[in-house]
């Protein structure tokens, strides 16, 4: 029974499901595409203000149509009302920001709450008006996806098509002005008009999304998929594609789940599905995901400890203090400032790595491989120090810190450049430029 229903939903066997699915998926794509530019333009909350400002338009249109004797449930007319008051709300934000010293976030808060409050008040009036079939209007606040009919879905589909076509055709121009509006304007591009076009598309998506996901949640289809897409790529074209895909997937999942459990409002489920996609992206994203960053950070931290300890052991030998375990330990902890915990960890890593072994008496000794590595690390460190001294006019006391920090990220190319810049050292390990130990501030 359940499996049967699942199949019917997944394969879009029902006409109604098909219509709603088409509408929400197209809305997801449109929001995902235009949302990328909205996000990069840093205007995400402006869309929220627009959607909230649309409510008095919906209620006002309803009252107006009722007064003129028309059908007050006509969706296109209600949407027209939403469009007008949404645009008016956006105009108010831009006006306040431009001509007063009130900051944009405050202006957004003012417009969003005042317009929404006005809309709620109008809804109250409508509900007290006798004979007014006002029940449908509340659905604009939370959305009523299931009530979508074929004409609505076609409207959403058309709008989505327009959004996608414009974004593809003006991809280069959108990229230019969302990245650097000042440069774009100086370069002769009509930044104001491009900005207006972008915001018009955002408003269009917002208004057609009102019925499906509602005033409060429509911001999610514009903001969540693009933000999630950013974790997977550093390329704008890919970001647009991924965001569109995520918008579609979230809509498909949300609509599907709510079709299986009809008491779940589809708009809310779609937004939750977007949220789930976002969390997964944030954690596992291949470019900027949290886990990837953590892993990269851990790898670098581990390499830093290992390289520092290799160099310390190498210089311990150089100083002739590697003989007994006592003198070695004293050298590392006192002269080099290693704390026990860090030292134990580093030794374990190096042992595991095959760079050191332990003499029966207890002292640590570099293996042949370890000695090669240690010599290379020490050499890079000292080359870098010499370079900093000679070419960057750094005060001597600061050299070691700079060298410590940067040497672990030196690539082969950079080392080659260092060698070229300091040819007199050839392939030998140069002598240290400062006194090693507490006096030299080395660790």
């Amino acid at each position, binding site marked *: 029974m359940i499996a049967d229903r699942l199949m019917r939903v997944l394969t879009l066997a029902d006409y109604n499901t098909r219509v709603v699915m088409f509408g929400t998926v197209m809305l997801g794509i449109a929001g995902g595409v235009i949302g990328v530019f909205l996000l*990069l333009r*840093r205007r995400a909350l402006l869309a929220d203000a627009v959607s909230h400002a649309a409510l008095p338009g919906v209620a006002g249109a309803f009252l107006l149509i009722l007064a003129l004797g028309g059908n007050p449930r006509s969706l296109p007319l209600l949407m027209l009302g939403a469009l007008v008051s949404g645009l008016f709300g956006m105009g108010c934000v831009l006006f306040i920001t431009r001509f007063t*010293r009130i900051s944009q976030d405050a202006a957004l808060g003012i417009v969003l709450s005042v317009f929404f409050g006005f809309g709620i008040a109008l809804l109250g009036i409508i509900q007290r008006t006798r004979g007014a079939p006002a029940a449908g209007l509340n659905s604009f606040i939370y959305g009523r996806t299931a009530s979508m009919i074929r004409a609505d879905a076609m409207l959403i589909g058309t709008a989505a098509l327009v959004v996608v076509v414009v974004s593809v*055709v*003006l991809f*280069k*121009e959108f*990229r*230019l002005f*969302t*990245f*650097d509006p*000042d*440069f774009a*304007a*100086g*370069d*002769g*591009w009509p930044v104001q008009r491009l900005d207006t076009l972008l915001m018009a598309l955002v408003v269009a998506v917002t208004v057609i999304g009102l019925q499906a996901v509602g005033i409060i949640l429509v911001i999610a289809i514009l903001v969540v998929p693009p933000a999630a897409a*950013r974790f997977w*790529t*550093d*390329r*704008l074209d890919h*970001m647009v594609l991924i965001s569109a895909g995520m918008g579609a997937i979230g809509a498909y999942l949300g609509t599907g789940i709510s079709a299986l459990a009809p008491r779940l409002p589809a708009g809310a489920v779609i937004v939750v599905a977007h949220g789930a996609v976002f969390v997964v992206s944030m954690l596992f994203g291949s470019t900027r995901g949290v886990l990837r960053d953590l892993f990269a950070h851990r790898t670098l931290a581990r390499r830093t400890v290992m390289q520092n300890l290799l160099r310390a052991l190498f210089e311990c030998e150089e100083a002739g203090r590697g003989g007994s375990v006592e003198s070695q330990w004293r050298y590392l902890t006192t002269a080099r400032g290693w704390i026990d915990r860090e030292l134990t960890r580093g030794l374990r890593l190096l042992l595991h790595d095959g760079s050191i072994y332990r003499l029966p008496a207890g002292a640590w000794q570099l293996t042949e491989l370890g000695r090669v590595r240690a010599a290379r690390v020490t050499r890079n460190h000292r080359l870098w120090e010499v370079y900093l001294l000679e*070419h*960057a006019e750094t005060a001597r006391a600061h050299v070691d810190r700079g060298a410590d920090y940067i040497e672990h990220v030196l690539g082969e190319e950079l080392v080659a450049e260092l060698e070229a810049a300091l040819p007199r050292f050839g392939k030998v390990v140069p002598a240290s430029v400062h006194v090693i130990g507490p006096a030299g501030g080395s660790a």
Partner: protein
Amino acid sequence: MDATAPVSGPIASEQTPSSDADGNRCALHIRDLTVAYHRKPVLWDVDLDVPPSVVAGIVGPNGAGKSTLIKAVLDLVPHASGTVEIFGKPYRKQRRLVGYVPQRESVDWNYPINALELVAMGLYRTIGWFRRVGPVYRRRALEALADVGMADLARRQISQLSGGQQQRIFLARALVQDADVYFMDEPFSGVDAATEKAIIAILQRLREAGKTVFVVHHDLETVREYFDYLIMLNMRVVSAGPVADVFTPENLRRTYGGRLTLLDRAVDAMGRSR
């Protein structure tokens, strides 16, 4: 007016516009430019006539309106009054002759774009509306990257570049604009020694190619070395002309040694009257 003489104050504004005594056209000609934010003037009655083929430094204390001067010329901030001409014609008609390097802090360096794509932005107006950035243009952008010593970092996402490297790709983007007059807003701020050298080399090359370059600058010690023309600014033009003539202790004192009290009070009064 003689281009070698210091221009200061409104005295010069009665002269015929946009060319010097020999009839040579000025690269930049400004008359009576006043810019105000929320009615508080930031630039006051600026008059400038800068000859072509110079590298001109713009110096002055914080809040002197250096960036604003550039933005006003480029029409990025509204003028309360005044005219700006590039080679004798209004700026709007001469946009294609102008290149711009904004302040590095003015953009979001986390934007999903790599160095090559950023530099290619300088070619957009050549490419024109709707069309993609083709291989020919990508090659030109790559050449510009090589010019600033960054060819091997073309595919690097811009947030992974150092401050100096970011500044260099901004410069490369301006280079591909292939302009005659450049405006650079603090290109030397927070850059490493290598970048500083690279920028100087480019300024040198632009001058040799007959370009005119305006550079907002902070470091007074390097003024004589970098520039051959200097605009000393503190809400108005204190002095402007060849460095040798105008870079004097007297002018420095007038530029940096506190604002003129009368002007200051007038500005405050205007700010209050709104």
